[in-house]
């Protein structure tokens, strides 16, 4: 009887580093060079890729972009990734959808086609309220048919962001949320946060939060 008790106790005792790492309660800090569990899409900018874990935008996650005005090349940051994920499937019938919710202007079809976006697989949604926009984003992210969902919002609360992140993880799609820069100092559950501001000759990118990477400003010297 005592023998069994000793054995149980022995099993509970961590014996090696591998055992400790296998424990789900232990949180591991990965470095940027470590291969991520999920696939990534390149941003098209080598200097930005180098700073992101895995070398690109992570899929099945929520990315928050903080900016005060449009025209800083914020969509251009994601277009190569959108093209890549639309072309990732062999069968064109299976090509995933892109959903743009409440964009500030009309997405200009010739520009998107020029960049290589499959227009037949692009959906524009114009909700009348912010709550409807968030609801639409959650539906699109969790549906599993959308590769990426881009959402433009004036403001939202923490609870909705958490829901969006869970939906993105459940549906395996990339969620991108564009918000005004005043939300910069609020806490956010997003996997990746970056702020965009004016700069010369091109916009300044500042990584605010990077899961598995180092935050800080990014030098976009060369393309």
């Amino acid at each position, binding site marked *: 009887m005592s023998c069994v008790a000793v054995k149980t106790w022995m099993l509970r005792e961590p014996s090696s580093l591998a055992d400790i790492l296998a424990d789900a309660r232990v949180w591991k800090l990965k470095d940027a060079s470590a291969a991520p569990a999920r696939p990534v899409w390149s941003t098209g900018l080598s200097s930005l890729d180098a700073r992101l874990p895995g070398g690109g935008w992570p899929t099945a996650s929520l990315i928050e972009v903080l900016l005060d005005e449009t025209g800083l090349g914020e969509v251009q940051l994601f277009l190569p990734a959108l093209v890549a994920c639309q072309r990732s499937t062999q069968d064109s019938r299976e090509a995933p959808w892109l959903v743009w919710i409440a964009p500030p202007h009309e997405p200009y079809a010739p520009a998107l086609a020029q960049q290589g976006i499959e227009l037949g697989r692009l*959906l524009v949604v114009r909700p009348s309220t912010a709550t409807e926009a968030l609801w639409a984003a959650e539906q699109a992210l969790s549906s599993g048919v959308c590769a990426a969902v881009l959402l433009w919002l004036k403001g939202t609360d923490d609870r909705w962001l958490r829901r969006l992140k869970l939906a993105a993880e459940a549906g395996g799609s990339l969620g991108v949320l564009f918000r005004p820069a005043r939300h910069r100092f609020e806490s956010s559950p997003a996997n990746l946060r970056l702020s965009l501001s004016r700069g010369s000759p091109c916009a300044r990118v500042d990584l605010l939060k990077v899961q598995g990477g180092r935050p800080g400003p990014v030098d976009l010297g060369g393309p």
Partner: protein
Amino acid sequence: MKLRSAKSRTADLFAADYRSAVRRPDASPAPQPIAPLAPLAPLAPLSMAPPLTAAPHPLSRSPRRQLWYAAVFPQMTQLEPSVLQKLCLHAQAFTSFVSIEPPNALLLEIKGSVKLFGSLQRLHADIDACWRQLALPVRSATAPSTLAALWLARAGDPLQIEDVEMLPGHLAKVPIACTAWDGELLQTLRAMGVTSLSELMRLPRAGLARRLNPAVVQELDIALARQPAPRRAFVPRERFRERCDFETEIEHVAYLEKALDPLIERCAQFLLKRQAGVQALQLRLKHREAPATRVQLGLASITSEQRRLTDVLRQKLTGLELKAPVRGMELISGALRALSASSLDAFAGLTRAGSRDSAPQLVERLRARLGEEAVYGVCLIAEHRPEAAWRRVHELRLTGAPQVAEGMIDQGMPRPVWLLNEPLPLTKPQLLQGPERIESGWWDGKGVARDYYVARTPAGHPQGIRLWVFQERQSKRWYVHGVFA
């Protein structure tokens, strides 16, 4: 042997000319011609018609096993198609094959029902009683061919003829006006001294066809059951329609959703049994006094899936504000449509592991809550003017491969991601790239003559934003038309 040859000659004469048929006394049954045993004509009335040129053999091909009941509603000269369809539904109590003869008559194939109803007399009386119950004055007749029954009914002879051989005698008395041929033809016949079918049948067949109309001879053949006349059966348009009344009045939408589930389940089963789908549904919520609330919903594609129907109905209900407590509800489907093979793809769910629903499902859920106009796609138009080179698409191609517009993609000057709805005036900016001259549209009054440039925000503004600007060639004014985001 001698007898046999004589009789078969009679049969040939009978085939060749109507006169032989008319000369026979009406009441006495015609002698049975000894011919090779006539193969049984198929019961299905839509049998293949022989080519019109070939003279039909009277016995081998005749649709002898058919018996047609015709009902003509003389007081209603022009019946609405919907009324006739309703009458068809009544008539389907007696036979499965009912056919509409516009404008005001029905034809019922009742051969198979005679045994079930006991006798032809009883069946005929029962069908007549059905019209009497509906307070419809009717003239009816039964004959082995469609046109004979119809003509006899129009003539007002309530006859029940079972035997093909009796047809010529009975039809002889029918005035030619009952055939409903066109007025000109009837006028010509009257001028020839022909007022009844007996006189018409006495005329030589070939001459009749040549001088009047081949259709006259053909219709006579059909009436005398010498030539089959396929008819289109009436198929009732089916809808799912079921109601459920509540014991207590319901004030909350959440309870409605619970009560809706069994209705949707039965609707899905109804559709599954018919291998059909719907694209529209209507839910009526009944109130004590106020008129019923109608909830219309459209689906992005034809479906019979219970989960999708539930999904869309729920979304629609959550946005609904009840104006009064609900006493009962009714679910009505739109027209049933055939399910396409793609919507029955059993492996669709397996190929994309973990996917929760399909693109049509997502779109219709978004549309159910946000409105039809709020969800759209974009497409290219082969057009030089930038504002006309694209448009919104509301009819989305949700399944299958997307169409690729290779030739329309302009790989020259860059285009901005955002296009402003209206060009905005600005001072001369710092130009980075260009010009690209666009001059087009002089033919429709919206002509443009512009030089486009990629530019940076003008002096005095903070730097860093790339714009798509143009200078109007006539006024030399500068406008911003797009933003490179």
